[in-house]
């Protein structure tokens, strides 16, 4: 097989996925945000919530459309570039993709129409029902795509037998395929990552309005909801789903785990490398370490021996530096997000959040952090799985389409790259206009009630008290 064809196919999959994955986390995160704010509107009839819901619905629709448009090439890339893979695992893997279409996309796109265009045509309650369905649909699509990907990480529920045209994986148990060892944990981790992207997006725009002293009731209320959400989610992201993911990778994908942690010596406890780099020549990882902390995190035992890179044959190791660095980037951002949302909540508690310019400016740019963390996380997961396309079962190099030529791949790589890049530029331009334009003025017929400034007041906030 032509090395260049393999490399270019991998490059194309990586590039298109990285560009694509910029959008869905925003839709999934904003979906939850919309369910909260429209729910608050129906409950309190405070029209600031309606204003918030309307504004973010438009942003949601924008990210959703580009997510769909950039996502369609993803589904077909298994066929175009990874035909050998598709033939080998289609019996097991294909049904997850089909289920995604049937259970998630129809739900999402159908009710999105009502969410975006239907507010004058259906009752408020039905509109809210549609919002919930769209949010649910967005989450279902995450479910099935993560199930499919988790099967590639920790394959289960199949056997290798002779098919009509050669050896292939055939399903033995659908539910063990769906609930393969890493599905649920990875799903939690992916979804909390999406929620963070959504909440920091809201906070970023709101902080900017507050700094510019525009749309204040709108921005302050959005900020408050998103801040509480971000605090809860960022804590659970690191301490629950992150913790579980680490343990699961350690258990099922030791070569990925060793590369992520930069752990070399088998049989010795694993140290936590705070930052640094992997020196492949010397076979060690350079950087400040906390002895035994990684071992302790796995099993609450600092002496626990962990399999190291030295016992993994060179041709079964993933690219070490990329796996190590992207993993560390993800973790650092995860911790940073907790610090940011905690300091935001603290200042809010003291009633000073909307006066602290520095923190608000940090929030304006902080929307990039979850985007980087989500991307770095996926790079860790996918690069760390190499050289396997299905862990331990099929090598990536064996999965590529046998009919492709270099020129075809140069053509498609350049085309997709230019296209996705320009789409991204247009997205930023359109979003920028939308943000500068701001929310439409709230409905005058219903009162806007400003929420209390302090967090502790909001906890026993009731409209009739004001």
């Amino acid at each position: 097989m032509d090395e260049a064809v393999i490399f270019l196919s991998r490059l194309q999959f990586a590039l298109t996925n990285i560009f694509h994955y910029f959008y869905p986390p925003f839709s999934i995160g904003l979906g939850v945000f919309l369910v909260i704010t429209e729910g608050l509107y129906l409950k309190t009839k405070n029209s600031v919530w309606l204003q918030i819901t309307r504004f973010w619905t438009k942003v949601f629709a924008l990210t959703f459309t580009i997510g769909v448009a950039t996502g369609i090439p993803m589904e077909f890339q298994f066929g175009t570039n990874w035909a050998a893979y598709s033939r080998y695992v289609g019996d097991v893997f294909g049904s997850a993709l089909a289920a995604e279409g049937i259970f998630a996309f129809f739900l999402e796109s159908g009710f999105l129409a009502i969410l975006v265009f239907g507010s004058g045509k259906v009752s408020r309650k039905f509109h809210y029902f549609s919002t919930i369905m769209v949010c649910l649909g967005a989450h279902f699509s995450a479910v099935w795509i993560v199930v499919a990907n988790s099967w590639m990480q920790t394959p289960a529920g199949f056997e290798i037998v002779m098919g009509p045209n050669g050896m292939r994986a055939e399903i033995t148990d659908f539910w063990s395929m769906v609930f393969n060892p890493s599905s649920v944990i990875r799903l939690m981790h992916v979804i909390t990552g999406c929620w963070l992207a959504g909440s920091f997006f809201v906070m970023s725009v709101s902080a900017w309005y507050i700094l510019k002293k525009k749309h204040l009731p709108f921005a302050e209320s959005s900020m408050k909801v998103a801040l509480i959400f971000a605090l809860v989610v960022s804590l659970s992201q690191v301490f629950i789903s992150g913790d579980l993911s680490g343990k699961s990778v350690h258990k099922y994908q030791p070569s990925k785990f060793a590369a992520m942690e930069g752990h070399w010596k088998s049989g010795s406890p694993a140290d936590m490398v705070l930052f640094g780099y992997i020196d492949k020549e010397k076979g060690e990882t350079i950087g400040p370490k906390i002895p035994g902390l990684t071992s302790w995190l796995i099993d609450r035992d600092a002496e626990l021996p962990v399999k190291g890179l030295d016992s993994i044959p060179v041709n079964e190791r993933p690219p070490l530096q990329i796996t190590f660095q992207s993993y560390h980037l993800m973790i650092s951002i995860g911790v940073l997000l907790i610090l940011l949302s905690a300091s935001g909540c603290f200042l809010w508690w003291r009633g000073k959040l909307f006066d602290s310019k520095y923190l608000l400016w940090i929030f304006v740019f902080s929307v990039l952090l979850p985007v980087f963390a989500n991307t770095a996380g996926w790079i860790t997961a996918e690069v760390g799985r190499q050289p396997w396309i299905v862990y331990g079962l099929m090598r990536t190099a064996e999965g590529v389409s046998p009919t492709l030529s270099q020129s075809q791949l140069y053509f498609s790589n350049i085309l997709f790259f230019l296209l996705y890049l320009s789409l991204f530029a247009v997205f930023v331009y359109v979003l920028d206009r939308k943000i500068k334009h701001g929310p439409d003025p709230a409905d005058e017929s219903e009162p806007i009630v400003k929420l209390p400034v302090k967090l502790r007041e909001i906890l026993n906030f009731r409209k009739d008290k004001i």
Partner: protein
Amino acid sequence: MDLNTIWFILIIIILTGYAILDGFDFGVGIIHLLNKSDEDRRLSINSIGPLWDGNEVWLVVGGGALFAAFPEVYATVFSGFYNAFIILLVMLLFRGVAIEFRSKSPLPKWRKFWDVCFSLGSLGASLIFGIALGNLARGVPLDSNKNITSGFADLLNPYSLLVGLTAVSLLTLHGAIYLVMKTEGETQKNISRHIKKMIFVFIFLYAVTTISTFIYQPHLLDVFKKNFWLGIIPLASLLLVLNIPREIHFGREFLAFLSSSGTIALLIGLVAVGIFPNIVQSFPDPQNSLNIYNSASTKSTLTTMLIIACIGAPLVISYTSVVYWIFRGKVKLDENSY
């Protein structure tokens, strides 16, 4: 009837659903530039605004179902038609984002740019789908490893190009009927003026395609010679085509729309019946063909998928109907519109 046959039929149904539904918004796209004023163009885009996204899901589901049920076909077709498929994806992508982006700025140049993207994307995608259908009907060269051995240029053979053009003319007509159904006043009159020409062009191409099929693709007719009753499909198809000008004449746009939908369904049905039980016919080495047995997943996967389809289909049908019901009637511009 075995599971493999059921899945062959289901996939044809999904693809037919896709062709009818996304077909009308392709058609609206192809004739988009016939609308001269900005308001007419907004009306045209908003007539499909809430619906096109859901229509495109049919393609995604069709792709997923093909992958799950006939992975060999999925792998062979998409890797073998690589360049054509990449171009198709780019077209689909462009027309999708064009719909969303167009309204986001009032600058005439901006709007014109996205109008052209929307129209060309729709035209190109329809043409490629049509060419693909033509190639499936005609057969493609497969080697013993089930890989397509022909290049991009071979796809553009005269017969497939003819089917491609026929498909474009049919979807143009289909979209125009839809737009007439959804608009009123001057906008409607402007589109109605072109419908007669479209019918004429389509019937002409349809006739030429039929004759060339008789002359150059006689293998497609074998099944009809053996089972005379199947002749009802081409007959019904002919009647439906002729019914379109009749319904238009009496101003019954909805019935005309149903007729053009039926024409699309029968056109795909004809090809499906003609190639069955093959899915990708190998030409000139028929023994290498991918049929519903040698390309299929295991019985267990086909059964699981059938269960998924039985749970999913009623849900899909119910929310699709709800959405089409809510957005029924003539399209009006309001604050939520594009």
